[in-house]
């Protein structure tokens, strides 16, 4: 039998069978068929399937395969829509489905630790009775596993408000490509060192295999409101979306269905959608009860303003379910139209959503295919659903063409090739459209740093042809002393201030050629708070490149909730510009308003508001930087959802100027809270006060010790802040404490005081950091990690 032959032929399989036993090492024609697929198109037969039950077994399986040179493909529930779990030829599929235990739920610390095979919904169900939830909720949540969610950086309808998977993973235990178990991150919100975890999340199992995951928990919202509005024009529906965002409302969900999809839904579930309408919009807001009513009223006003022909709202679980019925039934409705269905996945800036839908419709007409569009309209993510008959090969070819055209259309509109489904095996060939040879080479280098032999999920994420080494920019002629003054301005402290990006590039290339040590600096505030050197004092032996000269705001896309700035822009200036658009970048760094955005991000200190609004790595969506070689690379986009390639933008956060010089950053902005209030509480039983305040349903934006007292940030809608003020007053009188209004500037002091509390990186992964440093800065001209 074939199974027998394989066992004999491959010593690795013999060893694995001894390790796992015949029931957990599957070989032969049947096992090959049973693991050749996931939820995407392609199929490939694996060599064998391993079903380990604990991290030690995973490590040993990986160890054996690494030694014998057998590729490995990790698999959760096999629901990848991009082919992330499709075996590569001759690979062992490593199914983590049996590792499905929730190891710990710690509501106090707001952390759950799970094995990778835990199904997303099972975690939610375990958390609900305790009053918590795990925010990422991909549509497949009833079956997809948290390991798979992590690998794909899964999203879901609630991303607009709560962010994607990477925002909610605090740490992992990972089995490396050589079969060692290392920890990345911790249980704290932020961990020091290079953000290796930020690469692994969304790494599609190509960098390592998570065997234990620490997930961040959030308290369940106290109240919910859902609105459904029907529009006669897609433009008006989209403008309503932009209007809602502009009004300072961040809904928990903002979903839209186009006309063909509505028609399919109506045929299938009778959700009460008019067949001649152009779009239906579903908006859900959540939060403290005091904040729901005014938001719903504002949403209704905006819908009317944009000529919604029908508006319905609901608050109870049952009534809301009625409004959600059509949206929830959409997938089944589409499946009902034809035997086969392809759910594509692209992102565009929010303001071009109608144009994108128009192009999708046009592509459908051209390829003679039925395409209905499902939109996570709030974050610009859309899923054109193409239906077809899988037995019709000619039609299948048209489906493929349509998918390709949709991706190209999104890219040409400044969007992303994938927002949440991943690159996997099916979108690899688009990577060359998105990234240049330099970016691809760097990503290939990252892959090698983690997996030198290329055995972890090969054939995924990166295109087949990745340049080993991109062409380096030419180093300018002449000595450093000759050229540097030409391209930069030297200030009175002797720092070099570049005129433009090209200057940075040339400056670094020169220094790199000569092996001349360089130090990158912004305002000289943020970073130095963590370094042993006195503020602002440069190391004498390093040339200091100061990016303060690159301080412009480039694009403020208010409707898209993004802003692109140069690295040397000061936070104060940025906040002022954003405030004019009714927005802010919700970060209070140690350096305060004088700190530069580049410095803040390189420093990686998120400050006291991170628990409420996200960490720095969650608030940056794109980055442009110069490598020490002078090469300028860009990663990410002005899109909240984008899972194409490794998240180098997240790696640069906290890299402290050791990997390259930040030039340009795209940030996620948020509507300014209607009211911000800081209260300082002193005296009495402050610990009891703090515990009870944080257990309160309506939470403050931050609670931090400051001097002898506690500093409390109350932010949100007017009504919300009022409710919080009452709570604070009541709790204070119960605990004998004294609340007083305080200056908002005090938060900067708090932020500066937090630096000692950053969790140190766990030991074991230093080798990866060393290799990354080597990859970015092979001559070591920048400071060490």
């Amino acid at each position, binding site marked *: 039998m074939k199974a027998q032959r394989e066992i004999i032929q491959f010593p690795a399989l013999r060893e694995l069978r001894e390790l796992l036993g015949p029931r957990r090492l599957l070989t032969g024609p*049947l096992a090959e068929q049973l693991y050749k697929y996931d939820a995407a198109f392609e199929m490939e037969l694996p060599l064998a399937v391993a079903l380990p039950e604990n991290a030690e077994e995973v490590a040993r399986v990986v160890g054996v395969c690494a030694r014998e040179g057998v590729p490995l493909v990790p698999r959760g529930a096999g*629901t990848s829509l991009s082919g992330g779990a499709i075996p590569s030829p001759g690979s062992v599929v490593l199914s983590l489905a049996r590792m499905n235990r929730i190891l710990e739920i710690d509501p106090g610390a707001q952390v759950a630790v799970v094995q990778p*095979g835990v199904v997303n919904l099972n975690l939610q169900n375990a958390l609900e009775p305790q009053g918590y939830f795990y925010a990422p909720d991909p549509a497949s949540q009833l079956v997809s596993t948290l390991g798979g969610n992590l690998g794909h950086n899964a999203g879901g309808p609630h991303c607009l408000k709560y962010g994607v998977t990477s925002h909610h993973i605090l740490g992992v235990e990972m089995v490396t490509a050589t079969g060692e178990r290392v920890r990345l991150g911790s249980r704290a919100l932020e961990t020091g060192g290079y953000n290796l975890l930020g690469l692994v999340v969304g790494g599609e199992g190509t960098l390592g295999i998570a065997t234990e995951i620490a997930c961040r928990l959030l308290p369940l919202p106290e109240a919910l409101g859902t609105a459904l509005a029907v529009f006669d024009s897609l433009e008006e529906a989209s403008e309503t979306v932009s209007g809602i965002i502009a009004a300072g409302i961040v809904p928990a969900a903002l979903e839209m269905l186009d006309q063909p999809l509505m028609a399919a839904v109506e045929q299938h579930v009778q959700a009460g959608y008019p067949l001649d309408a152009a779009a239906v919009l579903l908006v859900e807001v959540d939060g403290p009860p005091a904040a729901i009513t005014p938001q719903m009223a504002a949403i209704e006003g905006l819908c009317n303003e944009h000529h919604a022909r029908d508006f319905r709202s609901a608050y109870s679980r049952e009534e809301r379910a009625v409004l959600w019925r059509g949206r929830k039934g959409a997938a089944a409705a589409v499946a009902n139209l034809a035997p086969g269905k392809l759910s594509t996945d692209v992102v565009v800036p929010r303001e071009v959503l109608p144009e994108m839908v128009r192009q999708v419709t046009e592509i459908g007409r051209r390829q003679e295919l039925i395409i209905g569009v499902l939109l996570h309209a709030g974050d610009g993510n859309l899923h054109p659903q193409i239906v077809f008959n899988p037995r019709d090969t000619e039609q299948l070819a048209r489906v493929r063409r349509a998918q390709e055209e949709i991706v190209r259309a999104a890219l040409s509109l400044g969007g992303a090739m994938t927002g949440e489904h991943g690159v996997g095996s099916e979108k690899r060939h688009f990577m060359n459209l998105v990234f240049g040879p330099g970016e691809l080479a760097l990503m290939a280098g990252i892959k090698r740093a983690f997996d030198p032999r290329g055995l972890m999920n090969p054939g995924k994420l990166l295109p087949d042809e990745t340049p080993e080494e991109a062409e380096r920019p030419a180093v300018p002629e002449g000595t450093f002393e000759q050229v540097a003054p030409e391209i930069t301005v030297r200030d009175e402290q002797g720092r070099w201030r570049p005129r433009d990006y090209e200057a940075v590039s040339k400056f670094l290339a020169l220094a790199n050629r000569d092996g001349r040590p360089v130090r990158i600096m912004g305002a000289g505030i943020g970073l130095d708070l963590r370094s042993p050197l006195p503020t602002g004092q440069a190391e004498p032996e390093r040339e200091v490149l100061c990016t303060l000269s690159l301080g412009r705001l480039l694009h403020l896309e208010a409707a898209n909730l993004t802003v692109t700035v140069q690295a040397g822009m000061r936070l104060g200036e940025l906040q002022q510009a954003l405030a004019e658009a009714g927005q802010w970048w919700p970060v209070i760094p140690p350096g305060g308003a004088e700190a530069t955005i580049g410095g803040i991000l390189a420093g990686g200190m998120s400050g006291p508001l991170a628990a409420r609004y996200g960490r720095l790595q969650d608030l940056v969506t794109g980055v442009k930087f110069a490598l020490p070689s002078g090469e300028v690379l860009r990663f990410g986009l002005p899109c909240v959802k984008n899972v194409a390639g490794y998240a180098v933008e997240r790696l640069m956060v906290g890299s402290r100027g050791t990997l390259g010089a930040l030039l340009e950053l795209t940030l996620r902005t948020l509507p300014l809270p209607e009211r911000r209030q800081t209260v300082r509480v002193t005296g009495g039983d402050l610990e009891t006060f703090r515990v009870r305040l944080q257990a309160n349903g309506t939470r403050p934006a931050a609670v931090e010790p400051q001097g002898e007292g506690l500093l409390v940030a109350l932010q949100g809608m007017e009504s919300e802040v009022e409710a919080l003020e009452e709570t604070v007053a009541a709790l204070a009188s119960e605990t004998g404490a004294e609340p007083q209004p305080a200056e908002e500037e005090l938060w900067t002091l708090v932020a500066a005081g937090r630096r000692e509390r950053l969790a140190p990186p766990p030991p074991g992964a230093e080798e990866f950091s060393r290799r990354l440093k080597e990859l970015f800065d092979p001559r070591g001209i920048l400071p060490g990690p």
Partner: protein
Amino acid sequence: MTDDELMEQELVRCNKCGYCLSTCPTYNVEFSEGQAARGRLVLLQALRDGELALSQENQRPDSGLVQELGEAVSGCLLCGACTEACFSAIHTDELMVRARAGMPGGPPKGVRLLTRHFLLRPERLTAIMRLAGVGRRTGMVRLLRRLSPTLELAEELVEPAPREFLRDRLREIGFHPEGRSGTWVLPRDPRALTVGPRVVYFIGCGTNYQLPEPGAAAMRLLARAGCEVVVCPHVCCGLPPYSYGDLVSARELARRNLELLGGLGADFLVTECGSCGRFLKRYPELLAEEPDLARQAEALGEQVRDFTELLATLPLPEPVNPPAGVVTYHDPCHLGRGQGVTEEPRRLLREAAGAKLVELPEANWCCGGAGTYNLAHPQRSEAILQRKVANIESTGAEIVATACPACLLQLRHGLRMSGSGAVVKHVAEIVAEAQGLRSARVEEGVRGGTTNCET
């Protein structure tokens, strides 16, 4: 639609999304694709497309490949939970039955023999069942079970057979013979609040030979609620051979039942066995290739009602003796998903029985009994059952109600093993007791009349 067309039409609609993994009870104990609906469908597709080739060497029924394939195909509980989770609503259960029919070597020969010699000839079946009962009581079976572990498990699962089968006890329940040979009638209870319909009662094999109590209770309740209850000769509904893929036998039984049950001049055909009821309702599909019969089957199918489905429409007096203790309800797959009857049994328990009902978590998750699945796949069945038992224990219920004999046996087995004190009863029993209808149970040792009315 032919079996082959059904296969093609259904398989092509699987998008491999994997949502069935969330509800498939076998996947959720083994976590391997071969024990999930998606994997099973992929295997069938691979066989059809020739990607999975059964060469001459491995086509023998005893070859490793065929055995593995059999494990995947026979591992399905036919619970239908996957269909509910499936956007395309693929009927994997039906496809598995077709696959079992098409396995190399075909369905087990024993099933065919059993059908021909016993299921189609109930008088013989009754005789052999009596013999088995005697054997078990006298210890003969104990001797035999040393030879076979399956038999040992069977003895644990299958409770001691009643001395009297349900058909032996019709007179005691109040039936009297009427006209046509072998027909018995239980008149309306004069106290009934309304004049209800005339119903033919379908006595399933499990009810007759294993669990007569729920059947008796159901008959008494129907009469109490104003029905005239008729019992007449019929054969096994055909589900057991169907489940083994023996469609020939299943169709033979269905045809025989159409002959015996057609034109009885009754309003409804009623049973308290969720599995029999569902299968009777599905005769039209089973006989689709014989249009004349299919039409008859259609007419019959429309008359079929689960006992709870019918009783819930009839008025009953306030309960006089509500159950002491908390009751929870397990949805039998073939009644809940299979027939869409989920509210009626709960309403009967709450209203007609006056029970304090607590909802069972995952109430419609298969208990793993699935006919004789627990005998064929004991370990997997046991693992599935553990989940059910844990859910039952989480409710703190003292009484577990359900509405299918196979579930009753499985749940009783599970609760015995776990040492839980909860008792498992059919909804009919609980309602009958609450309504003060005398338990039909004849005191142990007392011989009732011999009113066997088999054909």
